[in-house]
Structures are given as C-alpha cells and as structure tokens.
C-alpha cells in the first residue's frame, strides 16, 4: 500500500523535474484565466458554469499531453524492467502512476479556486453549484487521465500514445454531435457514452448516481485494462 504512494510521489517529482509540467500548467492556467475574464465580462453573473465547460473542453487536449509519457517513456528507456523486477505488484504500479498523474491534475485544478474567490467577492454565487461543478470537472479530468494512462501502456512511443488518446477522447467527447443521425437505442447509447450528457447535471448542482457511475466505471475499466496490458508481455 505504501509503495503506491512512493510511486505516486516519484511520478509527481518527475513532472516537476521536467519543463513540460510547467509549460502545461502555465498555458492551461493562462487560457483558463482568459476565458474566465471573457465569460464573466459577457455573462455578468456570479457563476462558474460556463468556465467549467471551457475547462472540460480544454482537458480533452491537455490530458493526453500529461499522460503520454506515463508508461511509454518507462518502456522506451528500460526503466519498466526496473519496476517490474522490484517487489511491486502490477496493480501497485498502475495505481501509483495513476495517482501521481491525478495529483498533478488536482494541483492544476486547485489553482482555479481563485476564480471562486473572485466571484464570491463581487457577487453571491451559489456555493453548492460551484462545489458540484468542481466535482464534475475533477471527475471528467480523472476519467480522461485514466484513458491517457491506458493508451500510454499500449505503446513505447509517446506520440502514438497521445494520438491514440486524442482519438478516444474526441470520440467520447463529441459523440453527442452524432446523435441526430441515429434513432432508437443506438441514439441512447451514443448519448450515454458522451461525457457531455453527464457533465450538465454537475454544473447545475445535481449529482445523480448515473453520472457518478459513468465516471467511476470509466476510470475503473481504464485502470483494469492498463493493468492487463502491463501484464501482457508482448511489448517486452
């Protein structure tokens, strides 16, 4: 159990030792700031609802950048051999790495708490809605990162890993746009697969079991698949 945290700690350390982490942090926060200003300036309401939407959209692009190296880099440099011959279970390796990435993402997200401070100072925002909104954004980010970690475990190349997760993320994020071409149960399935249909509720302050199950299941499936692909020795 401890070892999961050791791996997570190492993963986090690796992020902050490389310039990529800072570049992603700075660019993401800068873009969020710009949109926060534009949205508040235009809507003139004390709500982060639209800001959350922008964040969610940005995560589609950010998550693969954060996760592309998680496993593929270890494989290409040979450090995977180091991890796999240390007394670690495969589950500990996968969970440790995922937690490390998730923690980095949480740090990034927590930097946007200042927006809440600003709207709280100038207006009277609905606290609960903001809270559930953050939960939704965090869950979506966590799901996207799990997908990124999974694709990273499939390949030695960071580029291939990032491209694969872009394809998957685009599919599940934008699939709602295709619902008009389908009808019946196919339409319902496509609507349910899309993250769009699950985010809306969080942003207006509703937490439903269905939405929670969607994200938690998604994360769980990705982690299980990651573990399977680590166990699969084909790439060694």
């Amino acid at each position, binding site marked *: 159990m*401890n*070892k999961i945290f*050791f*791996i997570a700690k*190492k993963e986090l*350390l*690796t992020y902050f*030792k*490389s310039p990529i982490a800072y570049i992603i942090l700075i660019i993401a926060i800068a873009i969020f700031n710009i949109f926060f200003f534009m949205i508040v300036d235009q809507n003139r309401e004390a709500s982060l609802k639209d800001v959350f939407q922008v964040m969610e959209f940005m995560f589609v692009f950010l998550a693969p950048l954060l996760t592309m190296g998680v496993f593929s880099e270890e494989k290409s*440099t*040979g*450090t*995977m*051999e*180091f*991890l*796999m*011959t*240390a*007394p*670690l*279970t495969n589950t500990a390796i996968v969970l440790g790495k995922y937690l490390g990435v998730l923690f980095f993402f949480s740090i990034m997200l927590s930097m946007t708490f200042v927006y809440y401070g600003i709207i709280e100072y100038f207006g009277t925002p609905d606290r609960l809605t903001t809270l559930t909104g953050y939960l939704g954004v965090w869950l979506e980010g966590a799901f996207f990162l799990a997908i990124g970690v999974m694709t990273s475990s499939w390949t030695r190349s960071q580029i291939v890993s990032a491209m694969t997760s872009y394809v998957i993320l685009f599919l599940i994020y934008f699939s709602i746009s295709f619902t008009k071409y389908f009808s019946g149960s196919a339409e319902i399935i496509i609507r349910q697969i899309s993250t769009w249909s699950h985010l809306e509720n969080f942003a207006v302050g509703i937490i439903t079991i269905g939405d929670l199950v969607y994200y938690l299941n998604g994360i769980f499936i990705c982690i299980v698949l990651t573990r399977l692909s680590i166990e699969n*020795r084909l790439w*060694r």
Partner: protein
Amino acid sequence: MITTKNITKHFGSFQALKDVSFEISKGEIVGFLGQNGAGKTTLMRILTSYLPASSGTVMIDGDDIAKNPLTIRQKIGYLPETPPLYTNMTVKDYLKFAAEIKDVPSNQRLRQLDKVLEECQLEGVKNKTISILSKGYKQRVGIAQAIIHEPKLLILDEPTSGLDPIQNLQVRKLIKNLKDQRTVILSTHILSEIEQIAQRVLIIKSGQIIVDESLDVLLKTSDADQSRELTLEEVFVKYHSEQSEERHE
C-alpha cells in the same frame, strides 16, 4: 540457491532457450558466457521474473518463481544491460526511490543509501541529475540500485560495459567484496574479467548450455594436448568453433 529445470523460452516461432537446467549454490560467482543473441539476457530476465519461461521451473532460495514472484524479487538485485535510470532525477532521489520500492525498512533507508553511495563511489555526484553523468557513473548508479536492499542474489547483465579500466577494476573489486555475503551471476563479453572474478562458468550457445564447469577444471581439462594452461578466451573460441565444425560435417 538457484535450481532451474528444463527452462525453455519461445518468442513466437523463435526458440531463445532450450532445456536449460543448472544449479547454483550459495556464495558462488557464476559467469554467463556466450555470443550476442545466445540467450544470456533472456535467461537472466527469466531468473528475475521479468519474463515468464515458456516451460520449466525456477526455484530461488526455496521459492518457485512462478508462484511467489514478489518474495523472490525482494531477494534479487538486478542490473539490466542498460542501467534502468530515471535520468531527470538526482542520484540520491533515484536511489531513495529504489530503496522505497524494494522494501528497505524506513529506519534503514538513509543508512543503506549512504552505504551504497560509498561502495559505488557516488558520494561526489549524489546531488547531480543522472542525465548529466558520464556512462561510468550511470553504470555505477545502476549497480548501487541493485545492491541497495542487500539482496541475497545479484544478477548483473554486463556490469562493466562502457567503463574505463580503472572503473572496471573498481567494479570488479566491488563484486568480489560482495561475494562473501551473496551469490552473484554476471554476464560479460570480456573474458579476462570472468577469469578474474568468477568461480564457475556457464557457456550458452544458441539457447543451450554447452559448458557448465568450475573455472579451474575448465581451464585444466581443456589443455589435454597442450602443455600450458589455456586462457578462457581459447576455451570459448574452441567450444564455438568445435560446434560449428560438427554442424558442417
């Protein structure tokens, strides 16, 4: 310490190891010899449980590697051919991480860290980022990582590749110092090195063990038609040419 029975390993249709069986007892230093692609690294990877064998059993210190891989990994220190280093970490951070995931108790971690830094002469670079170190230093960080948890069995895949003669000597000394406490398996292309440290030699050719002999016996028996003792190099060449002649006939 190690007992292997009939290990075979296939990669697709390619058979990397055929019926490899041997025993290594505690405290021995054994050298794996063979040409490139003979199967040395594959065999080492199976012994470290990194790769599963296609068939056959490996028992290490009384445990079956297929059943208790985690307990066995605690007892093994492994240096792969390319040292597995996180190049953006500092030497100290990296070794600390190695100690953490290799079950070194938290109250002994710092002591072990200092010990391997001293043994591998890394004190001067402990706060440097690994990526800027020279190859010799990187190799020694790799060795430090392998011995930090005081394993009973040390498996070193070409531990001296890329080292200058002085470093080479130091690494050999290090391995010799280790032998009182543990069993060492190493592979190398530099035969004179094996002559100096190993007590026993396994020559692997095309996935099969063709010689399993203590070094003294090997060098003595091979000189039946010559008055002087052979060098290991001559023995090695002899075995490899003999076999290819047989094949031509």
